[in-house]
């Protein structure tokens, strides 16, 4: 993980990196910011696009409020943004669909049995009590949400049948973040990120 110096409007260290996957690269930027996380997220998308050679930045176009904006003049380039509390994660990729999700503590929402029943596969529900720390469930959520955003299905995706890998040991962190890409056979690959200084 590469740390770059904080710059406005960020107030905390911001990590930026490259994830080589499926024969391409996913470029991501992840950090905690001082305010206006949504505005920062879009500024970071522009930053990532402008930083890539051969990718023109001609702004974003939004067809409607219900559809994710697309990059103008960048055919085949996808991006995803996520923010939670003061945490922001964005990703840009060429030739592959990408999804990003970040969740910042507190993770009290995951105490809900109703939510766990809706978001876990039967195998995950059986395994979850054995996972430590308890916020493994947040880790599972970020992976599923990132996959759902990569496929474009969003909440239409049934998380109860969406199995993702979640390593059984994981140090609890105040921010959980995950990237996902989808291959030609609709098989997801995920990568979790951590802010070491958070």
């Amino acid at each position: 993980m590469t740390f770059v110096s904080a710059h406005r409007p960020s107030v905390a260290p911001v990590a930026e990196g490259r994830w080589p996957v499926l024969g391409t690269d996913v470029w991501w930027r992840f950090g905690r910011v001082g305010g206006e996380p949504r505005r920062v997220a879009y500024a970071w998308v522009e930053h990532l696009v402008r930083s890539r050679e051969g990718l023109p930045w001609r702004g974003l176009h939004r067809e409607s409020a219900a559809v994710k904006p697309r990059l103008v003049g960048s055919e085949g380039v996808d991006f995803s943004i996520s923010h939670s509390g003061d945490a922001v994660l964005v990703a840009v990729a060429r030739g592959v669909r990408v999804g990003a999700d970040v969740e910042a503590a507190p993770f009290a929402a995951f105490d809900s049995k109703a939510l766990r029943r809706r978001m876990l596969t039967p195998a995950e529900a059986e395994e979850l009590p054995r996972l430590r720390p308890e916020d493994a469930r947040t880790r599972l959520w970020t992976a599923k949400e990132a996959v759902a955003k990569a496929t474009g299905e969003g909440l239409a995706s049934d998380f109860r049948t969406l199995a993702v890998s979640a390593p059984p040991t994981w140090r609890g962190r105040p921010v959980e973040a995950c990237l996902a890409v989808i291959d030609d056979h609709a098989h997801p690959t995920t990568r979790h990120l951590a802010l070491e200084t958070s």
Partner: protein
Amino acid sequence: MSTPETIAASAPSPSDLGDWLVDRVRFYDQVDAESVTLDAPLKELGLDSIYIMTLCGDIEDTYGLEIDPAFFADHTDLRGVAEALHTRVTAT
């Protein structure tokens, strides 16, 4: 997090369902309780994907209705959600 009580007996009215929805969303505590009303824009109630899915589970626990999270995209406020749920409840 508390579990909503299962409501049996007679079918709930749209008003009952609306009160229950307001109560649940206030319990989620994502925005000020006063701003959670039947007519407030759904997008301003702090219902991100986590809480939409939680609400689906709570509806299932309480009213026995299996609701798809995408159901909420068809509505702009909790009043509309309550009326649609009432239609579903009385149809079962």
